[in-house]
């Protein structure tokens, strides 16, 4: 395989992935706003390559309990996409939909989060598909509520086959009226043989 992940820092590839993150997250924010019929602001997404060790720190440390919603990507390119948010953001997100006390991750909250995750990841992938002309779709969601380290081991292991870094796209959505903030992290994880398909479709030659 000719693709080398670590060189991305200095190349156009990171910019391309950042732009994908930007457009994808923009679409996700629009979908979210439509769904809850409220104005949603979005900060410019932050796309970074982080060491394995740094990733759980973003989510309150490896033992902090967070929520991960995971989808497989199927079609012209394969891989997976995961949306991760901490307990506070998860509860804010569910609260935007329905005013309800969501201190605990009960069955109701979990099912609401799956649905929201589905819409966010779905619009993310739809914009990726539009941008690349690749036919791709996402699977049904799988959800896990567990230690950040454990949940983040999933993207870390995938990226671990290429490098010692994880590519992370951080998005912050803010519901304007009540100023409730949702800090979410997308991990776009192409399968190894799909990097060339993805970047090639955007005119980036490796």
């Amino acid at each position: 395989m000719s693709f080398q992940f670590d060189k991305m820092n200095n190349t156009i590839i990171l910019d391309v992935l950042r732009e994908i993150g930007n457009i994808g997250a923009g679409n996700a924010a629009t979908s979210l706003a439509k769904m809850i019929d409220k104005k949603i602001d979005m900060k410019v997404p932050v796309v970074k390559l982080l060491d394995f060790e740094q990733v759980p720190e973003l989510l309150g440390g490896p033992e902090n309990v967070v929520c991960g919603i995971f989808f497989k990507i199927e079609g012209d390119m394969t891989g997976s996409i995961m949306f991760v948010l901490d307990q506070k953001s998860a509860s804010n997100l569910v609260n935007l939909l329905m005013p309800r006390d969501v201190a605990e991750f009960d069955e109701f909250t979990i099912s609401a989060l799956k649905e929201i995750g589905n819409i966010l990841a779905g619009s993310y992938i739809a914009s990726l598909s539009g941008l690349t002309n690749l036919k791709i779709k996402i699977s049904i969601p799988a959800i896990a509520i567990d230690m950040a380290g454990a949940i983040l081991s999933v993207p870390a292991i995938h990226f671990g086959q290429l490098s010692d870094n994880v590519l992370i796209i951080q998005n912050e959505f803010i519901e304007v009226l009540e100023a409730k903030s949702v800090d979410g992290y997308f991990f776009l994880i192409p399968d190894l043989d799909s990097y060339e398909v993805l970047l090639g479709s955007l005119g980036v030659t490796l």
Partner: protein
Amino acid sequence: MSNMVKVGMADLKAVVYPDALTTLGLGSCVGICLYDTTTKVTGMAHIMLPSSKAIRKNENTAKFADTAIVELIAQMEQLGGRRARFVAKIAGGAQMFSFTSQNDTMKIGERNAEAVREILKEYGIPIKADDTGGNFGRTIEFFSDNGKLLIKTAGKGIKEL
């Protein structure tokens, strides 16, 4: 004074009594704990992938089961351990997200645990405790005074092996 020495992801450490070792939030990764019952030399590795062989960028020996075990044994021997006396305890290898149709990449936890078992067998190190699989994360602590392994989970309690 005993220290609790932290082992990161794709990392390994060897210590002597009375220090202890810990790694936080193991998911599909596997924590490999080795203990010399006589000298109390203690080691831990937090591996991410089963084998370094199919991977071109493989200089980080602690990332792979095959190379990490070799390196951990070497570091423990430098501290006065003897491989013939080593016993192992392993934990992790969970599958955090499950789908009805499984492909190989999703079963990485299981493959990690299997690789660790095979390699330990190759080196003649008996596995005294094996807490792998499931769909949940684990934090582990390994103590050099008696080779006790403490496994903590989010919502599934603590156990001692």
